[in-house]
């Protein structure tokens, strides 16, 4: 049984940080302060947090369009994240990326990609870099159940498997791709079953249990660092909100019933972890309350910082295209 209190508390802190960040994002979208598409990670916090806490700061990670949970879990600065969502020059990407393209290379966040499956090969390449550079940095691409049907998934897992690259393929199976149930779209029963096609370990994990996620990913990371190659981990989870907030592909038709949503909310990852910490006497209610207060203050600061930050100057339009710039018009 995991007993490291600092770690257990950090799990809770990061999950709460994502939850409160996302709740604020919903408000900002409704107020029109955040434009474009924004995909809520609420309900899935344990997956990214459990996985990222099994990594070192210098390990690599790539993500997808559901893009706020991964960077926060990996230790990204919420100020810069919020500023990016508001399109400000102080954001991770100077306002050029926005919600779907958060990235912070300084803490190993190689970027969130809006195109499904697109960032999986990137992670494989980062892991190839570790091998060529003779270090033991691991790469974790996050992708959804829907994206596991993209050709990039197949090619990337096979490539990592034959080259024994230090990759942990992390499928966040929240059971739907927009309105499409994975039961209809994925031919295998579990996505983790697909590991058989590549002779690598495939593990189905309770994605609502941050400790289960942490332990499964830790084992895969150990394998990877030891040069034993990649693993495929499926975190079975659920998104509480609609596919996308604001713009994007909103689907109203009842592709899932409220009952199902309610049942899953009964297994809220944050409540589960909280109750466990209390039950096991690892944390007191006071500690948890003050932690929540601290994180709430962080998020308030982040929003304040984002709001106060300037928009990029028009000149920025032609900047950052090339390391060695050329005339552009």
């Amino acid at each position, binding site marked *: 049984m995991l007993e490291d209190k600092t770690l257990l508390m950090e799990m809770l802190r990061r999950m709460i940080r994502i939850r409160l960040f996302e709740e604020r994002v919903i408000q900002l979208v409704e107020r029109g302060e955040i434009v474009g598409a924004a995909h809520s990670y609420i309900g899935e916090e344990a997956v990214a947090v459990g996985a990222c806490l099994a990594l070192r700061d210098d390990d690599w990670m790539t993500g997808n369009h559901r893009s706020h949970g991964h960077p926060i879990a990996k230790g990204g600065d919420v100020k810069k994240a919020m500023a*990016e969502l508001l*399109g400000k020059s102080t954001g991770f990407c100077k306002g050029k990326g*926005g919600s779907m*393209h958060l990235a912070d290379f300084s803490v190993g966040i190689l970027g969130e990609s*809006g*195109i499904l499956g697109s960032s999986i090969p990137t992670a494989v390449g980062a892991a190839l870099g570790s091998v060529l550079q003779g270090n033991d940095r691991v790469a974790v691409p996050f992708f959804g159940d829907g994206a596991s049907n993209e050709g990039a998934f197949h090619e990337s897992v096979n490539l990592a498997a034959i080259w024994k690259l230090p990759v942990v393929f992390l499928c966040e199976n929240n059971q739907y791709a927009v309105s499409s149930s994975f039961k209809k779209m994925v031919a295998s029963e579990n996505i983790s079953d697909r590991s058989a096609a590549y002779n690598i370990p495939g593990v189905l994990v309770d994605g609502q249990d941050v400790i289960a996620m942490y332990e499964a990913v830790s084992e895969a990371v150990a394998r990877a660092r030891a040069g034993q190659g990649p693993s495929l981990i499926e975190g079975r989870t659920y998104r509480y909100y609609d596919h996308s907030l604001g*713009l994007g592909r909103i689907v109203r*038709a009842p592709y899932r019933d409220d009952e199902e949503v309610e049942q899953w909310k009964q297994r809220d990852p944050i409540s589960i972890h909280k109750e466990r910490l209390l039950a096991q006497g690892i944390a007191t209610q006071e500690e948890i309350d003050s932690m929540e207060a601290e994180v709430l203050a962080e998020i308030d600061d982040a929003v304040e910082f984002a709001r106060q930050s300037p928009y990029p100057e028009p000149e920025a*339009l*032609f900047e950052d295209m090339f390391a060695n710039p050329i005339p552009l018009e």
Partner: protein
Amino acid sequence: MTQTLTREITLTQALNEAMREEMRRDERVFIMGEDIQSGVYGASAGLAAEFGMERVRDCPLSENAFMGAAVGAAAVGMRPIVESAFCFMWVAMDSLVSQASKMRYMFGGQVNLPIVYRSSMYYGGSMAAHHSDRSYPIFMHIPGFKVVFASNAYDGKGLMKTAIREDDPVIFCEDRTILGSRGYVPEEDYTIPFGVADVKREGSDVTIVAIGGMVGLALQAAEALSQEGISAEVIDPRSLVPLDLETILGSVSKTGRLVTVDMAHKTCSAASEIAALVAMEGFWSLQAPVQRLGAANVHIPFSTALEPLCYPTAATIAEAAKATLE
């Protein structure tokens, strides 16, 4: 009757009607796409309810497979409509280029491929670099596609019907910035042929060639120019492949001046191609340098402080027109 004559619907509704009517007319027509069965917005809305889940098919996130499956289905006698967007076509380029565009010629004309690839463009809505592609010039460069562009509801319905009845692969460009704009659309069945440009406004001083959402901006520019006594002619090619070069050359022979407007990146764009063609075929009519407008040669930034700077506007179009008259 007046009711009919004044019936105004959005471009999205016009596309929906075109597909609905063609699906009623020809049972070989079916639709493939992502989350189209449950969609209550969008051009496919309600089609699953009328035609069922077999003919309105939700696909897994495997664009290369289902865009290629459209080719196979067409090859055996079906008439697929594929709903997607340019930004999601990169993963499917092999099926589009190696199969859809090449198969007929490569096999000596043994097969017809009646496929409509509905290609949305989400630019202009802070969707950032991965969701703002407008890559139709690529499909002009690759032989084998017909490339169509609707700038209003009326054209949209007529062009979509032609596209569905066409026996060749069609890239049907759908400009998100105008999908919601309303226009008169009759209830009677009608089609609009490919390769016939439409003069959206007549003028004598300068020719402005624009497509999709740029047409509306060009018309605004023309209106503004008229205040300054400049008479601009606005031409909408409606299809880029085939291109009605004659109408464009005819206009330039009248005005002697050309502005081409594109929402794709400038380099190797439709605007470049039309500029080049006029410099070749209409050179002796030209009395001033061609003005080519297009999106900046950068990827589309997210920030509302930057994205609007990327595209032509009514103002920059008017400026360009004036520049040809200096």
